[in-house]
């Protein structure tokens, strides 16, 4: 077997694969090493129960960069995205609110709660889309470097600044608020109806250990608002066959361009000699050499796990230890005998998008209080999707799969994270009990159940502290500070070692941008029209 490559990518998640595909496309001899038997990392589809395919971890696609889809010709390699049609909020009092792609239908639904909100709702969407358009070049380029005086860097910043300055005063004001406020405070400025604000505010807390009233969550809300499909902002979609299809299509593209991919090939350590990465040693003792080593794993696992503290500068390690993970969510995947029927609104029309269990701000506050006390929320925020309604490949005919993203499930339980296995079932029960309050006969319809706690996310998927984004997506951990100031451009203190996962700019979600931008940086190419990549330092 071959033992020498131009580049070895540790971790066959979607970002590692994207990096490999770009490197291979540029003619590099690339090897991807995946610990598990299946590719995708947290963007993975697995037939957990016969006939039922779960998007085990991440479950919707939005931020996958359109230029990556084009560059790698992903549709040709099996990527098929199906947009979510609606956002449904059932309420315990028998009412419900569904936001549709159709503005007229949405207006009518919101007006049942507040005529004023119904009128202003499209304006909010437009304001967010404008900001999305402004932020887009930032997530499509390596992080800007505010400390640099290189002409290309300054030109890039200037272009960005010009875009900012050209905005109207109102828009500027809105942007600044977005950067500083809490999701609830921001939404309070716009809307009066809880039924609208509660489900909207949760976008601000996904994957963070923050509450909807915590300052800074307004920005995270934007991160989730920026989802883009076919040029339309705020669009989310299913990948046909589950989110693993995204990873598999990227893998197919990578192989097409000549990359080699090995599964069940766990890496023990990254070989560093004289401050330079030289290759990897697998757990079975095999040593593989490469000019460059890329890690798609999170910063903690990469540096403290594969490299070792003793080989890293102290100040870097110190900053690394301050980089916050604090996983706060879990996942419950269900195989259902029949379609759930919500008491407040029977039928299936409104179940083809996502379903939010977020009946009020107070409910979300209480859920957060539980987490702060070191226990999972007794009544959590749940984001439900039923992909089998639009994608018959994931369940037997007439049966369904239901994916439940659950927050809060704090990694640090009062008795420590190792207490999670003992609480796994109780956590699963809390989710089922919560949903059963809205869906009569729900328990009886469950054929199989898979419960993933933050502990499981760490043990099985290598996500440190179970953080789904390789580190919290909070403002101080983004852009030129992700993961560590001075090393936000995919390079690391170890020469020829690169970071290509969600712990690098621009962060988590099935985006592919960290992997693709890492590869472009390694290749020393202009990474985007907006900002010029500096290459490694």
């Amino acid at each position, binding site marked *: 077997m071959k033992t020498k490559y131009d580049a070895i990518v540790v971790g066959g998640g979607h970002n590692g694969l994207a990096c490999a595909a770009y490197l291979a496309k540029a003619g590099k001899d690339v090897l991807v090493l995946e610990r598990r038997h299946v590719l995708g990392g947290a963007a993975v589809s697995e037939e957990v129960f016969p006939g039922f395919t779960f998007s085990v971890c991440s479950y919707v696609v939005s931020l996958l960069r359109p230029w990556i889809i084009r560059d790698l010709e992903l549709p040709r390699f099996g990527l098929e995205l199906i947009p979510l*049609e609606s956002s449904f909020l059932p309420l315990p009092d028998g009412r419900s609110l569904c936001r549709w*792609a159709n503005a007229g239908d949405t207006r009518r639904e919101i007006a049942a709660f507040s005529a004023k909100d119904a009128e202003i709702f499209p304006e909010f969407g437009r304001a967010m*889309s404008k900001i999305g358009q402004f932020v887009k070049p930032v997530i499509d380029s390596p992080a800007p470097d505010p400390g640099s005086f290189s002409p290309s860097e300054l030109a890039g910043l200037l272009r960005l600044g010009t875009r900012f300055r050209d905005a109207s005063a109102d828009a500027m004001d809105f942007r600044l608020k977005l950067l500083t406020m809490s999701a609830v405070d921001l939404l309070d400025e716009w809307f009066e109806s809880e039924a609208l604000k509660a489900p909207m505010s949760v976008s601000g807390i996904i994957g963070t250990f923050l509450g909807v009233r915590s300052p800074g969550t307004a920005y995270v809300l934007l991160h989730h608002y920026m989802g883009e499909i076919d040029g339309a902002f705020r669009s989310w979609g299913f*990948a046909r*066959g589950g989110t693993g299809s995204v990873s*598999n299509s990227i893998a197919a593209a990578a192989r097409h361009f000549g990359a080699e991919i090995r599964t069940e090939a766990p890496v023990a350590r990254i070989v560093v000699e004289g401050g330079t990465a030289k290759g990897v040693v697998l757990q079975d003792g095999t040593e593989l050499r490469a000019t460059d080593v890329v890690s798609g794993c999170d910063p903690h696992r990469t540096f403290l796990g594969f490299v070792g503290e003793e080989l890293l500068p102290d100040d870097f390690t110190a900053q690394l230890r301050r980089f916050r993970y604090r996983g706060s969510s879990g996942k419950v995947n269900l195989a259902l005998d029949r379609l759930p029927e919500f008491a407040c609104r029977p039928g299936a029309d409104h179940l083809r998008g996502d379903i939010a269990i977020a009946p009020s701000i107070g409910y979300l506050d209480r859920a957060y209080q539980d987490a702060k006390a070191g226990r999972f929320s007794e009544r959590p925020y749940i984001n439900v999707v039923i992909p089998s309604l639009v994608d*018959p490949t994931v369940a037997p005919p*007439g049966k369904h799969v239901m994916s439940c993203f659950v927050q809060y499930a704090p990694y640090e339980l009062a008795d420590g994270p190792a207490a999670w296995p003992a609480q796994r079932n109780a956590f699963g029960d809390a989710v089922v009990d919560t949903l059963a309050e809205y869906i009569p006969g729900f328990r009886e319809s469950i054929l199989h159940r898979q419960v993933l706690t933050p502990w499981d996310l760490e043990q099985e998927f290598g996500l440190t502290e179970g953080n789904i984004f390789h580190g919290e997506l909070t403002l101080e951990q983004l852009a030129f500070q992700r993961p560590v100031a001075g090393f936000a451009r995919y390079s690391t203190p170890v020469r020829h070692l690169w970071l290509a996962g969600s712990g690098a700019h621009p962060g988590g979600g099935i985006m592919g941008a960290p992997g693709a931008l890492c590869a472009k940086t390694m290749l020393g190419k202009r990474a985007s029209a907006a900002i010029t990549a500096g290459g490694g330092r």
Partner: protein
Amino acid sequence: MEVEAWFRTLADTMPVPTAFAARTHALATSLAFKEWAGCHAVRHYGAYPDREYYALRTAATVMDATPLYKVDVRGPDAARLFSRVTVRDFTDFAPGRVAYTTWCDDRGKVMDDGTVMRFDDERWRLTSAEPAYGWLAKHARGLDVELCDVSREVAALALQGPYARDVLARLVGSVADELRYFRARETRVGGSDVLITRTGYTGDLGYELWVENADAPDLWDAVLEAGRPVGLLPMGLDVLDIARVEAGYMLHGVEYTSARDAFIPRQESTPYELSLDWMVTLEREPFVGRAALVAEQRRGVAKRLVGLEIDWDAYEALLEGYGLPPALATATCRDGVPVFRRGKQIGYATSRTWSPLLKRYLALAHVPDGDAQPGAELEIEVTVEYERRRCTARVVPLPFFDPPRKKTTPALTAAPAR
């Protein structure tokens, strides 16, 4: 006469409902209808066509295709008739086969296109966009054939999409597995005689089911019931218009003007100009238009129907110049626009669509033969904020969308790549 009755007489004339109308109209809450060959046809059932589009490409759909014109031909000389009238040779056309073909006038100008099906030794059928009975009858002189226009007696239901086989198998069992691409089989569904052809206008795995009008509602019910577990949906013409562009299929009246309708010669097209070379057989008994087509071959074909892909980066940059994000509706635009090479108009595009599945902005265009090679870099007119701009577009091979499931037998469900 009562007022309502009086106004009803004004509305009652045209278009007319098809045999599926009782079912389709009840489901078309959009009230979005259009006229198709004198019949009511649903454009999209719900508020917007997107849901139907994704059902077509990920599950299955049914569409009322009844408005197509149909002529049944019976008799020992049917093969000679179709060989004489159309550009294809039907001499050795076995029972159970179906073929897509086109036919021309004496000057080799395309009149229409459609499919020829042969049920058994004696019975054949031609489908077309415009009435073809008269044209067939005119050329049937001296042949032992009997013609019957069944356009308004036979209903057609298109069952299309990756799960079309699964749905059909629930109705007809193994026939669904055995039926090859462009083959026909007569069978029974419930109490009705149904002709099933493995054909369609979507570029996907699919079938068309042909029944007597009286049996149409029962067939509709049976197909919808069989399709429910896999998420089958009824589909309207708006999605068909996207699907057929993805499939690279030209549309009568859009990609070409029938020689019957053309007012001036430049509006007409030959089969070669529509890139239908593959179906034209010149070396045989004379057929309508043959001499003109032979002459055209000698002279060289002037223009070609090609696939164009609009360069997305260029398109996005163009809009970015206006501060606009790119946004395209889920719809095919049939307004013709000029196509340029180095700033000079050389042709025109007739259909444009964003393919939500392929994530590509596609067009069908007519360009000089010399610019028709895949890779040729051209420009297409784009209107942004009422200003005419040009955007890079490249010639790419047709079809744009060509999944293996379309032709494989047995027709297996195409699960996504794993």
